[in-house]
């Protein structure tokens, strides 16, 4: 907020090269005490590398990072934390079986050698009070939702009295109301004098939380502006180096006859009494807060975690979906929300990852026809404009957006009639998003039904024929495209 504040963190002319790519090519910006400084850029723009350098996990080739005027040299992530720069990771490295208290204080126990339960509880309670949130202190972290885990992660950064907080995609797994809470906390941290570096792919968010915005492209800083002096379109244009005319393709066709009907669908306490129908060629959006049970429905419908109750009618016949293999045989496939844990086989090439669910299309009696596999993979990946050095590259070396394209190719190569896509653009940059949207729309237009689950509300509204809103494991309402406004959805969801 204080425009002329001195630089808390000063980054000057950072460069960093890897064997095959120049990741940073002269990055400079300042973070002032008391400001939220957003850092935006497409995947591959150099944000991750920059963050790793700031957090002490990588050393730059040249350039300097100074905290309160003192240059920081070398050092490990632990040393950087002690110096006052704390990173809140995108992938939330918490220990699931440990309690909230234990996780917050991990690596930073108060007292001496022996654990002091009273001291620890009090300390964590104070930290959470500072954040203005309540969490069950003695609950194992594994039972918390994504939004709550995020808070634990932030409390962990506070526990070291961080002067600079690096937030990497903190909202990636949050729904709208969780985001509001996060935004309030971020603002609060800044008002207490911390400098917050905030990275997100969701441009709308930037304008809600940030004081200034720095745009990175191809490893360089393109611009730094006060958030009030630029708008969404300008930021996107600077990120991609071109203007994106149409964000969402037109949804201008009518769906065909019903293909799937679900009634009384439920599993445990996760969701119950869920009912909906899908038609051929229809994109049915599913909106709701995190924890509303949307992904649980996706997992049940695709056999990943089968439902315990209810009836599924596919093409007019009752079916039982007990495993992913069975769902795929019936023509129902899943694009998972958790790319790393449930989707990618990281060490294997792009080609094998793309064809993993469709091996029968290029094999007979178990023998693989590698030539046919290559052409199938190429065709599917070209349709998504995959950008990779080669289809033989290790899939782990691709950017998030390109990895997501590989998984969408995997799903579509199987030719399912019902696609369950869960958070298809999470952690995906603007350019790749457009390509994924275009492909999903083509697939639906060709007659497949798509269940589109997303925490990105504009995405759900922009792509769906109808929007199903879930709340606490139940269907809260169903909105036709014309009636599906952000307000209407939020009234049902909250």
């Amino acid at each position, binding site marked *: 907020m204080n425009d002329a504040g001195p630089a808390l963190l000063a980054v000057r002319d950072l460069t960093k090269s890897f064997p095959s790519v120049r990741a940073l090519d002269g990055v400079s910006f300042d973070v002032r005490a008391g400001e939220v400084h957003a850092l935006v850029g497409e995947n591959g723009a150099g944000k991750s590398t920059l963050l790793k350098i700031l957090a002490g996990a990588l050393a730059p080739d040249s350039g300097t990072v100074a905290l309160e005027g003192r240059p920081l040299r070398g050092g490990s992530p632990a040393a950087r934390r002690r110096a006052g720069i704390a990173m809140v990771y995108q992938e939330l490295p918490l220990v699931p079986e440990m309690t909230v208290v234990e996780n917050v204080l991990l690596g930073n126990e108060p007292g001496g050698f022996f654990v002091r339960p009273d001291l620890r509880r009090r300390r964590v309670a104070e930290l959470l009070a500072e954040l203005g949130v309540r969490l069950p202190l003695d609950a194992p972290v594994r039972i918390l939702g994504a939004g709550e885990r995020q808070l634990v992660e932030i409390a962990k950064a506070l526990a070291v009295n961080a002067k600079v907080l690096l937030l990497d995609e903190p909202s990636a797994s949050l729904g709208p109301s969780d985001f509001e809470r996060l935004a309030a906390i971020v603002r609060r941290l800044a008002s207490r004098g911390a400098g917050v570096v905030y990275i997100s792919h969701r441009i709308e968010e930037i304008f809600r939380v940030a004081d200034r915005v720095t745009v990175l492209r191809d490893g360089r800083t393109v611009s730094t502006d006060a958030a009030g002096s630029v708008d969404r379109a300008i930021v996107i244009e600077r990120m991609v180096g071109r203007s994106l005319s149409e964000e969402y393709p037109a949804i201008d066709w009518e769906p065909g006859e019903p293909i799937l009907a679900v009634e009384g669908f439920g599993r445990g306490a996760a969701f119950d009494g869920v009912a909906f129908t899908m038609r051929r060629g229809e994109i049915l959006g599913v909106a709701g807060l995190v924890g509303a049970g949307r992904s649980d429905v996706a997992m049940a419908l695709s056999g990943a975690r089968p439902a315990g109750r209810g009836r599924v009618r596919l093409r007019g016949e009752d079916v039982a979906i007990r495993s992913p293999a069975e769902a795929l045989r019936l023509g129902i496939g*899943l694009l*998972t929300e958790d790319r790393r844990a449930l989707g*990618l*086989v990281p060490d294997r090439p792009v080609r*094998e990852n793309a064809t*993993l669910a469709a*091996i029968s299309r290029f094999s007979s009696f178990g023998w693989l026809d590698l030539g046919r596999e290559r052409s199938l993979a190429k065709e599917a990946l070209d349709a998504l404009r995959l950008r990779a050095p080669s289809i033989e590259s290790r899939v782990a070396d691709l950017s998030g957006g390109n990895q997501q394209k590989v998984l969408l190719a995997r799903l579509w190569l199987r030719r399912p009639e019902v696609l369950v896509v869960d958070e298809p653009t999470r952690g995906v940059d603007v350019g790749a998003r457009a390509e994924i949207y275009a492909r999903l729309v083509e697939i639906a237009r060709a007659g497949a039904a798509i269940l589109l689950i997303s925490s990105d509300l504009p995405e759900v509204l922009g792509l769906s024929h109808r929007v199903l809103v879930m709340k606490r494991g139940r269907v809260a309402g169903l909105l036709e495209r014309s009636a599906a406004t952000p307000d209407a959805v939020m009234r049902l969801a909250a």
Partner: protein
Amino acid sequence: MSPQRRSALALAGVAFAFLATFSIIDPAFLTVANQRNVLQQIGATVLLGTGMTLVVLTGGIDLAVASTAALSAVAGAMAASAAGFGSGALALGVVVALATGAAVGTVQGSIVALAGVPPFLVTLAGLTVLRGAAFLLCDGVPVANFPEAARGIGRGFVLESWLGSSIPASLVVVVAFVAAAEIVLRRTAFGRSLYAIGGNSEAARLAGLPVRRDLIAAYAVSGLAAAAGGLLVASRQGSADPKLAREGLELDAVAAVVLGGTSLSGGRGSAIRTFVGAWLIGSLRPVLNHLGVESYGQDVAVGLVILAAALLDRFMGRGRD
């Protein structure tokens, strides 16, 4: 350069460095006679290691291979002996041995795949149970007095008249087995599935792969390969002894797998790599002998080489992520 290729080059580099060093230390090292000897010696390690490679690719391990080899060899020899050691009886013995190994592997694989017990525990139990079972089966008395025909594979040579110098019959079997395994890994849906399971088993399951079936099959193949290794040793020794391969052959097999660069966490590696790994270990000992290093010193050296290979793979084979 892809990490796979970097890792393959690292292995080739190590192998070449060994080759050069060994040749300098021991001028006889690269002679046909010496190599024939080495390749004959490592036959059982390669067979056990190749089977184990399939299991390790899924992220598991099979510590029971040496015990499986002993039990299968004893079972096969007893069957052949009971049938009178004729040529039909020998065929029966081979079938019984291989079936025993495959059955043992299937049981272990089922416990891993269906009950979710960690492979280390299942096969550690297997290691003791199967060794004990081998002793119980024959009352601790080795089945000896193999007829000459039964000793052919272990000791015999082929193509004697063609090449002037001859090829050990065991080498033919071993190479055929490794080649078959490599083809299965590269060119079949089953092989593809093993890599996927080891790389990310949940992703494999969600992609609709028959994860449980293929896991069980991997352990079954490992059991089968162990049985083949047991037959090879028994054939060479001319008897099936329940103490067969009791000097840590399972660890030699693990060492060959690891030295070849197959990742113990699964998803990366190949059968040929295991062959190269076994060859490196098998070559090292005679060379150390030549240098006058006694057997404990050799153990130290072999262990250090394995550690060095693991470190090299760690730093050469990994891309940045």
